[in-house]
C-alpha cells in the first residue's frame, strides 16, 4: 500500500504535485495546439501560394520540422530563442548577463512550431479535397471571395481536417513530455523528480502513463463527437 501513501495529497505525498503538473501539461498542450493552428494558417497559405518563393518557405518549414527529431527541435528552439534574445539585448542595450526566458512560453512555442508543421499538412490536404465544383457553384450564385471562403470552404475544410487535427492534438499532447528538458514541471518532469526523491520510479512513471491515457482518451471522445457534428450530411441518414 506504499503507493497510496506516495500519491496522497498534501505534504507527505506527491498527488497534488502530479495533479498540478497535469494542469501544466494541459495548458502547454492547448497553447501549443493554438499556436500550431495559427502557424498552420500561414503554412497552408504559403504552401498553396502561386509565388514560388513563398511556397519554398512553406515547404522548408514543414520539411525541416517534420524531418528532424522533436527533441532536437525543442533544444534548437530553446537555446536559439535564448541566444537570440541575449544577443539582441547585448547589441541594443549592452546587456551581457544571462537572460532566462519564461520557460512556459518557450515550451509552448517550441511544441507549437512542431505541431504547426503537422497541422499545416493536414489543413493543406483538406483544402485540396474540397470539390472545386462546390466553389464554382458558390461563385455562380454571386458569392464574393469572403463568402466562398467563410460559408463553403471553411465548414468543409474543417470536416476533412478534423480527424487529422485530432491526431495532431494527441501528438502535441505527448510531445509536451519532451519539454521536461527545459525544466518546465509538467507530468513527465514531475514524475522524474518524484521518482528521484522517493526511489519509486515505477509508481510515478506508471501514474504519469495513466494521466496521459486519461487525457488522450478524454480528448478522443470529445473529438469523436466533434467529427459527428462536422460530418452532418455525409454519413448520416439514408433516404
Amino acid at each position, binding site marked *: 500500500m506504499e503507493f497510496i501513501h506516495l500519491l496522497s495529497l498534501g505534504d507527505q505525498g506527491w498527488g497534488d504535485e502530479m495533479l498540478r503538473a497535469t494542469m501544466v501539461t494541459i495548458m502547454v498542450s492547448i497553447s501549443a495546439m493554438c499556436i500550431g493552428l495559427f502557424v498552420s494558417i500561414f503554412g497552408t497559405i504559403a504552401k498553396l501560394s502561386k509565388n514560388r518563393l513563398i511556397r519554398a518557405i512553406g515547404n522548408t518549414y514543414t520539411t525541416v520540422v517534420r524531418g528532424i527529431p522533436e527533441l532536437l527541435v525543442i533544444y534548437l528552439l530553446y537555446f536559439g530563442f535564448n541566444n537570440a534574445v541575449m544577443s539582441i539585448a547585448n547589441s541594443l542595450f549592452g546587456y551581457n548577463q544571462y537572460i532566462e526566458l519564461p520557460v512556459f512560453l518557450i515550451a509552448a512555442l517550441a511544441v507549437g512550431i512542431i505541431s504547426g508543421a503537422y497541422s499545416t499538412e493536414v489543413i493543406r490536404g483538406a483544402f485540396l479535397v474540397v470539390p472545386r465544383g462546390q466553389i464554382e457553384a458558390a461563385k455562380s450564385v454571386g*458569392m464574393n471571395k469572403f463568402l466562398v471562403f467563410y460559408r463553403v470552404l471553411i465548414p468543409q475544410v474543417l470536416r476533412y481536417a478534423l480527424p487529422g487535427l485530432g491526431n495532431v492534438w494527441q501528438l502535441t499532447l505527448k510531445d509536451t513530455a519532451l519539454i521536461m528538458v527545459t525544466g518546465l514541471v509538467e507530468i513527465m518532469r514531475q514524475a522524474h523528480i518524484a521518482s528521484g526523491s522517493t526511489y519509486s520510479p515505477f509508481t510515478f512513471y506508471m501514474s504519469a502513463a495513466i494521466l496521459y491515457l486519461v487525457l488522450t482518451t478524454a480528448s478522443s471522445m470529445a473529438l469523436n463527437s466533434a467529427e459527428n457534428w462536422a460530418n452532418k450530411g455525409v454519413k448520416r441518414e439514408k433516404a
Partner: protein
Amino acid sequence: MITALKIKNLTKSFGSLDVIKGISLTANQGDVICIIGSSGSGKSTLLRCINLLETPDSGDVWVNEELISMTKNKAGDPCPADYKQVDRIRTKLAMVFQDFNLWTHMTVLQNVIESPIHVQKISKQNAIDRGYDLLKKVGINEKAEQYPSSLSGGQQQRVAIARALAVNPDILLFDEPTSSLDPELVGEVLRVMKSLAKEGRTMIVVTHEMGFAKEVASKVVFLHEGLIEEQGEAKEVFNSPKSERLKQFLASNLEG
C-alpha cells in the same frame, strides 16, 4: 426589348490549345438556346466564359446590355476590372452544373436559401418561404430538411435548379445538366427544364439531349472546334442541316 445576352468575338485558350476561336452569339429575352457539338468542341468552356468561371482571353460579354468590363493584371493576363460587378452579374446568370455541385454540408433548403440570404440580403423568413415555393416547383419540397447525399442524382439536380432560380436570375445557364444522370433519371430533370422554358425564361443549354433541343430550343447552335459551324431554328438545324460535320454529328447522335 433589351437583349438578354450578347457575346462578341470571344476567344479562350488553355496553354497552346485554342478552345474558343472567336464566337459571337445573341440571346433575346425568352430565348432557349441549345448549344450542341461533340466533346472538345468548346461548348462548356463557352458557357463558363459567360459567367467568368473561365476568364476569356478576348471578346466582350453583355448581360442585359451591361458590358462586363475587363482589364489586364500585372502579368498581362486578362481579368475582370471590377469583381463586385462580376458577383452582381453572376446572380443574373445562375448556372446549373453537370455534377450538381450542391454544398454537401447544408440541407436542401439551406442550399437554396444561401445566396438569397447572404448575397442578396433578403430576410430569412422571406428566403425560406420562397425556397419552399421553388422546391415545390421542382417537385422536391418534402426533402427540404435532408442533406444532398441522401438524394438521387435527379433529385440533386432539381435542387440545383431551385438553387439557381432562388437568386432570381434573368438567364439560366445549363452545363450538360443530364450528362451525369442515370438514364431513368434524365426525364425528371428535362421535365423541369421544359416547364421553365414554357414560362418564358431565357436559357442557354449545353446538352447532348437532342430530343430536348428539338422540342424546346428556339435556336440551336452547333459548335465545332471552337467555332460556330451552323446555327438556326431547331427545325432547320435538325431537319435540313447544311454543313457536312453537322450531318455527321446528327447521324451519330439522333439514333436512340
